[in-house]
Structure formats: structure tokens, C-alpha cells
């Protein structure tokens, strides 16, 4: 099964931080640890939500420990 949430987040991340280059980003990574500031972390989430057509308050996705957990929550929101 395609992890659409993860794909959307990675696409948004690479768009906002092209300097990541070819670095592999996995589900266990956290945006903060990758050096993404607070505004850009929110931006990545909003861009991903937009791409996935999720119409929900962004605060619903607060508190995810890493990209994988965030992706899971996005996937759940899509399914709802």
C-alpha cells in the first residue's frame, strides 16, 4: 500500500529544503532534527495537507515524534 502521507511530506520537505540534496530521509527522521525551523515545519505540513486534500485544523497533527508518525496521521485523516 502506498504511503501517500509519507510521499507528500517528503515532496514538501524537498521543496522547502532543496539543500537536502540526495540525502535519504526515512520515517524515523524528525523534521526538527533535520534542521527545519518551526515555520517551515508547519509549511511542510500545510503543503502536504493541501496535496492530499485534507481539510482539517493543522493543530490536529501536533505532537508527532517523527515523519513516520506524521505520515500515519495524515493517512488516517485522508481515510476519514
Amino acid at each position, binding site marked *: 500500500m502506498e504511503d501517500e502521507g509519507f510521499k507528500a511530506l517528503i515532496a514538501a520537505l524537498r521543496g522547502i529544503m532543496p539543500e537536502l540534496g540526495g540525502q535519504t530521509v526515512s520515517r524515523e527522521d524528525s523534521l526538527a532534527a533535520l534542521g527545519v*525551523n518551526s*515555520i517551515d515545519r508547519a509549511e511542510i505540513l500545510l503543503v502536504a495537507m493541501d496535496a492530499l486534500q485534507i481539510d482539517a485544523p493543522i*493543530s490536529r497533527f501536533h505532537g508527532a515524534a517523527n515523519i513516520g508518525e506524521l505520515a500515519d496521521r495524515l493517512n488516517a485523516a485522508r481515510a476519514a
Partner: protein
Amino acid sequence: MVGVEALNVYGGAAYIDVGRLCEQRGLERARIENLMMREKTMALPNEDPISFAVTAARPLIEAMEPAARARIEMVVACTESGVDFGKSISTYLQDLLGLPRNCRLFEIKQACYSATAGLQMAINFLLSGTSPGAKALVVATDISRFALADDRAIQEWAYSEPTSGAGAVAMVIGDAPGLLRIDPGAYGNHGYEVMDTCRPGPDMEAGDADLSLMAYLDCCEGAWRDYARRVEGADIRETFGRLCFHNPFGGMVKGAHRHLLRRFARAASSEIDADFSRRVLPSLGFGQRVGNIAGGSLYLALAGCIDAGAEGERVGLFSYGSGCCSEFFSGVVPQGAQALLAKQNIGAGLDRRRALSMDEYEALLRGGKALRFGVRDAVPDAEMSALASSAATPRLVLKEIVGYHRVYRWV
């Protein structure tokens, strides 16, 4: 027709360079750039929310004709830096500014939303027509003094240290608005319970920065939707020539603006950047020099917007207070507003502040010379208070506290 007749800002007598502070704290470049802050004002031991408020308001009161001054029937102090759980700051304003006694005096609290709550209270008092020709004085006043309590408090506060400032914005609200003519009934609200940031004790601030940013963004969207529900044909791109946002730091404003334009105007990135430069950036000038002054931040942005030139434009304003409550409202800047505001020389006032060295800043922050909340009798530390600029006059300062009563003098 009601709105803001006059506005003044008091941005303190001393400041620290934010870039230098960030370096000192070892903050990453990415975070520093995100802040879009240059300087932040520091309150000195002989300064408090009352001294800031009165200093901001006095030129406005003195410029009024006696007959107009006599029509001030409401004084609203809007703050999250209160000095007493019962007695409002407004009582001191009434006395120190020589205002009439047939006056409603009270204080409003809801984090950074407080000033907008105060403004709407004043506006709707006037719109009600229960006292035709009445005026109101609304003053947003806040200082940050959070590193005093203990190491835990310092740690809690560390995130907002680079941006938390001090300042007061005073506004006279009346039926001859020369600065901002409010659009009556054009507003939207969005508020709910969320524990994003709070001030659980005097001299303490705590919270979750990520949650606060998210709540700000959600409220921005929610308040706009409510405004658009009330105002037929409202369009985030077309209706407003300028936009002003509550400004904890410039990066947050940029993010909120981007969110609104992408969600409601389906605008592309390049369009969003150009729009931000044209409609929002002019409002950030004063805020970048004073720091986050809580409720007053939005009105500091309004001042920046008018100062940069906005005559004839409809301004959309977004206010957000943690905890939370928010409002999107609007008004039109009349012809002559820029020259009228320029009489207050807000920028020159900021230029007169003294630049603190890092040692002086640290001494102020941790030296324990600030008067603690609830002190019964005290005299402010003279040495630390002398760190002020000698050119920042006239300003009100705290002379002493006697039996909990605060006594001031002008310097």
C-alpha cells in the same frame, strides 16, 4: 463613523540587538533568519506596565482640546503583565493622565488578543449610541520579565527570549477617526481552549511553540472564514490594500499570510511573496525594533502600516491570543493619516533608546533587581534603572511602592 482618532507608541528607553543576543545563545542561523527581528526593548527596574502605558498615552491626551478630553468615558488597559489581581491599571491611568471621573475603568486579559478585545469594547460602546460623542482610551501595555523566578522558568522562557519585548500602544477611540475608520460589523472570531502558551505565575511564561504556531494558523483561517461569512463578497486578495497581523516575530506573520493566500486565493509561491512585500512587509518596521509586545503587537503593526503610507486603503487586521481567541476585522485609513501619525515621531522615539551591552542585558535579566510581583514596599534599583537613555524623555518612571501603592514621577 468610529475608529482610531490618535495612536502613540512608547517603545522603552533601552534595547538589545537581537542578532547579538542570538549569537550569544548559540542559536542556529535558520532560526535567527526565521525571526525577522532586529532589536528588542528591555524594561528597566523603575519601569512597569503602568509607566509604559502613561508615557504612551500622555502626548495624545495633552493634544486634545479640554472639551474632547472631558468626553473620555472609558479607559481600558489591555495586558497580560498585570500588577494586581483586582485593581486595574486603568485606575492609575485615570489619575496620572488627569482624566474625568465619570469613566469606566477596567482591565482586559486574553493573552495577545486583549488589545483587540479592548478596542472592540470601545468601538461597540461608541456604536451603541448610548453616549453620543463619547471617547475611549485603549492602552495595550506589556513587558517581559521571565528569567527571574528560577532556572526552570528560564528554561521555559528560552524559546521566546529572542523576541519578547516591552512596549505600550495607546489609542484614542472616537467618532472622528483620523487614523483608522472601522468597518462596523465586519469581523470574524475563532476561539477555543488550547494550552499553547500561558503565564501561570507572575514572572513566568510557559508553552509549546509548535502548538502555538499551529493554533495561530488555525485561528487565522477560522477568523477569516467567519469574517467572510459576515461580509458578502470579502476576498483575501481583493478586499484589502494592506494586511496587519499580530506579530510575535516576522517569520510567523509570513507563514500565516502564506497560508491564507494559498488556502483561500490558491495563489502560487511567487505571487505570495510579491503580495507579502506589498501588503504586509510595511507593517513590520516598528515590531522588528521593539519585539513581541503581546496585545500591542498588532497595533504596532498598524502604526507601521500607516507610517509607510496606506491612505485610502482598506486594512485587514488579524489578532491572536494564546489559550486562545482570535479576530479578523477591518477598517479604512483616511487621507491625512500618515501626517497625523507622524506627529508622534514613533521612529525617532525608538532611535533615542540606549543600546545595552550583553553584560548589561544579562545583569538586568538575572540580577534580580526587578521588583517582584506583590512586593509591599520597595524602591527600584537606581543603578540598573540608570541604564536608560538620557534622551528618552519625557517618560514616567516608578519612584517607589508604599503599602502596595505605586508612586510615579516624570523624568
